[in-house]
């Protein structure tokens, strides 16, 4: 990434020129980098909050925090990881990769792209500033159930509402941009069914974002009017219904879960074929399975609310619909295994993270299936079993997915190679730490430990101590990752070959390394290969 000298007047002070360049950039690669840097910064902030939580839970009793501050940490950890780390990281990857993969010169709406990024720092300043306000930060969990968040919320809740609105605007604008780019900017010959899986998963994610985020905006707007303008959407004493909030929230919340995993599916579907040196098995069924998961995600929200008081018929419907998601998800896992089957596999760091993704995500999928069974859910619900479940889905899914992507495409982005030995150490310590942190949570949950509690019965002490030790180690692995990336960027071995990985396929590998700031100014022409031609005919 070289500064574009001719766009910036020469007489400016270099620092001002630097700031203006990044503030005003409309280049998809630079905006992608901004997104990834912001996501990584917020990942550290959200992670530090998780460290506070695990430190407090290291032993029963109150050690380091007071209950109200603990609740603030739990709340902000969730909000920042979901809206600040995972989602911007995926948007950053989309910015970098979608134009390269479809042979487009840039995103379709470059100024909008700049705008949707620069909303985010302000959104998170608003959210994080609440920590320093009288009454403290939001303390009602990232799910902000009414009336705890409306009638009983701290004054800073209004900053939270505004922050969520801004994040939503950013996400919707980003999603529109991705969608328009994919649908209109493909190079000649790049038919929909020749697009790489990562592009497909992001196209579907963009639809989910546009469907789901306005619903979240509706939820926080109703909160705002309940708090200040005398409405009673969620206030029973005024004729409203607190459970309505949960319906609205989870109608957003469940698609949101897939927003945070589908691009990860796409990443695994790019990386596994490369290092298995074999085409992705079942390309079409992968696309169809992703669409099926996305559609099903809109009719399963009730499974978050089985204990909220739901009629039998609704419980049965949501149970069956939820179980059904296991089918397309299973198809994806089977396809990845079949891709590796009788390949010629090597285990570079991106491949290790992709395999770790598949295995541990599947474990999270298993516990998700168990949670779908309503009678058993009455025992699992709101316990650490659920915490174990969604961290198994999100950490190996979203975080391992993003890290696999960074290792895989960093040489293309920067023209420099990461340290393979350190990458492998990172993978193995992270995998060990993830399992040490989150696996014992299954057992503390089954033994009866509710989630979001600052203090617990001594019966759960051993499992919590293990989780806390694992969490500390997991925190350290992030510093190792930062070191590996910085080392690669500053002193990594130079990559000169366009084809960084011998088995990699796709347009991005036809560009020189590092990819020039402006690429595909003349669109490439995609020659249908035999396989796709055959598939097109079929």
């Amino acid at each position, binding site marked *: 990434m070289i500064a574009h000298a001719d766009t910036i007047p020469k007489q400016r002070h270099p620092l001002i020129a630097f700031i203006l360049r990044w503030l005003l950039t409309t280049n998809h690669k630079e905006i992608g980098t901004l997104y990834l840097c912001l996501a990584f910064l917020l990942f550290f902030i959200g992670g530090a909050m998780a460290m506070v939580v695990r430190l407090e839970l290291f032993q029963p009793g109150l050690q380091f925090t007071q209950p109200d501050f603990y609740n603030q940490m739990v709340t902000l950890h969730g909000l920042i990881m979901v809206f600040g780390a995972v989602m911007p990281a995926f948007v950053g990857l989309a910015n970098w990769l979608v134009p390269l993969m479809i042979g487009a010169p840039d995103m379709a709406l470059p100024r909008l792209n700049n705008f949707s990024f620069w909303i985010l720092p302000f959104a998170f300043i608003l959210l994080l500033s609440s920590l320093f306000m009288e009454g403290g930060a939001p303390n009602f969990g990232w799910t902000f159930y009414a*009336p705890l968040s409306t009638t009983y919320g701290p004054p800073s809740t209004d900053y939270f509402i505004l922050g969520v609105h801004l994040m939503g605007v950013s996400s919707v604008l980003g999603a529109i941009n991705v969608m328009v780019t994919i649908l209109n900017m493909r190079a000649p010959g790049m038919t929909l069914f020749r697009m790489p899986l990562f592009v497909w998963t992001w196209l579907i994610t963009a639809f989910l974002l546009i469907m789901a985020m306005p619903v979240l905006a509706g939820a926080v707007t109703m909160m705002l009017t309940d708090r200040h303008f005398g409405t009673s959407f969620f206030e029973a004493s005024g004729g409203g219904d607190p459970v309505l909030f949960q319906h609205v929230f989870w109608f957003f919340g469940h698609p949101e879960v897939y927003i945070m995993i589908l691009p990860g599916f796409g990443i695994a579907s790019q990386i596994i074929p490369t290092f298995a040196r074999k085409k992705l*098995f079942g390309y079409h069924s992968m696309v169809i399975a992703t669409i099926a998961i996305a559609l099903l995600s809109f009719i399963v929200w009730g499974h978050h609310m089985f204990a909220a008081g739901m009629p039998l018929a609704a419980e049965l419907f949501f149970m069956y619909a939820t179980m059904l998601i296991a089918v397309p998800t299973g198809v994806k896992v089977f396809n990845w295994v079949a891709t590796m089957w009788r390949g010629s596999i090597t285990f570079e760091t991106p491949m290790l993270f992709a395999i770790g993704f598949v295995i541990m995500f599947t474990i999270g999928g298993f516990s998700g299936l168990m949670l779908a069974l309503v009678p058993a859910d009455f025992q699992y619900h709101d*316990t650490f079993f659920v915490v174990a479940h969604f961290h198994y889905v999100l950490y190996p899914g979203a975080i391992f997915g993003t890290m696999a992507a960074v290792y895989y495409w960093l040489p293309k982005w920067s023209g420099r190679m990461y340290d393979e030995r350190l990458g492998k150490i990172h993978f193995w310590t992270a995998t060990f730490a993830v399992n040490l942190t989150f696996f014992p949570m299954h057992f503390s949950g089954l033994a009866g430990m509710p989630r979001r509690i600052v203090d617990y019965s001594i019966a759960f002490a051993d499992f919590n101590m293990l989780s806390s030790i694992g969490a500390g180690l997991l925190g350290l692995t992030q510093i190792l990752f930062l070191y590996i990336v910085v080392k690669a960027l500053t002193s990594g071995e130079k990559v000169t070959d366009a084809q960084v990985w011998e088995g990699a396929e796709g347009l991005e590998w036809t560009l020189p390394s590092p990819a020039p700031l402006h690429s595909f100014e003349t669109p490439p022409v995609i020659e249908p290969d035999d396989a796709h031609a055959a598939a097109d005919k079929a």
Partner: protein
Amino acid sequence: MTPKGRRVIATLGQLCSIVLVIFGFSHAALAQVFDMREGVTETSQRVQNLHHISLGVCVVVGIVVFGAMFYTMYAHRRSKHPVPAKFHESTPVEIIWTIIPTLILIGMAVPATTVLIEIEDNSDPDLTVLVTASQWKWHYQYVEPDIGFFSNLATSQDAINNLIEKDETYILDVDNPLVIPTNQKVRFLMTSGDVIHSWWVPDFAVKQDAVPGFINEAWTRVDVPGVYRGQCTELCGMNHAYMPVVVEVLPEEEFDAWIEDQRVAAALAGEQAVADRSRTWTMDELMPIGEEVYISQCATCHLPDGAGQGIRYPALAGSEIANGPVEGHIDRVMNGVADTEMQAWAPQLSDRDIAAVITYERNSFGNAMGDIVQPLTVFEAR
């Protein structure tokens, strides 16, 4: 899978069990640590059974899928398998691995549906208890006979602050447990006075949210007498962790005796209240009672030294209300502040306790009003 692969897995399984036995774990001990609780009701046992079925299915599927993955990682790595195969599509295979999981899921849905239909049958209860949650306590009201009481955390602040040893029932102990009889279908009607809470007893497999303005139903039938403990499971504010559920299950005849005791106790409390308000109390009498009430009811928010915690839990030391007209102080304690954690204490505490705690607050933490609130004053303010 090849015979060799099977041998490897069998050996691994044996190794695992040998290691566990060496470390002195019996099957029962392992189940206690790693399994869902069996509980003491037919429902809880059927739920545990369902857990075993779904876990078993997941383990078997996991062994097959992960086994295939590890096998291919081993057998098809480049050093052993330098030339990759070319295949990348097979419609029959895709159909097979769509249909087989669907059949497995149907197999799991059948028992889940059966158990669920049973759980949702709230009809024909022998006894009904109205459970009302509030921050951070439960109130139990028996519909017939007319008995009701609050159930507060009984664990001391010293144990929470690590000043004394924690016991087995740490933060799972209450002053007044819910008491129900064995072998009767007990129906719970759940609601809440403020935010959403959730009433959970793992040994009954009953978990139901208490939602303000709405009534949810659940039921249980316990065969084994004993004391069963659970917690609030829906984040309900600052002291969510300190809101235990304790249920004491008594044999039917003992339960009847307990009901009788409650009736007698209620009558005695009435007489005591009359006696309390018919005499004048001294500061020395009220202060120790007030301190006791303050520590058990008020100190979690306002802190033992009255310093408070920011604007949401204001300081009592030097506060306008504790140092202002006594009528305002009585009104604040008895009626609370709507839509905040400050509850109305009039229904929860006796005249004597309210009088004592107000007297204590006006004459502690550096407040020195010197006035005494009499139980009669509180009675008249009701």
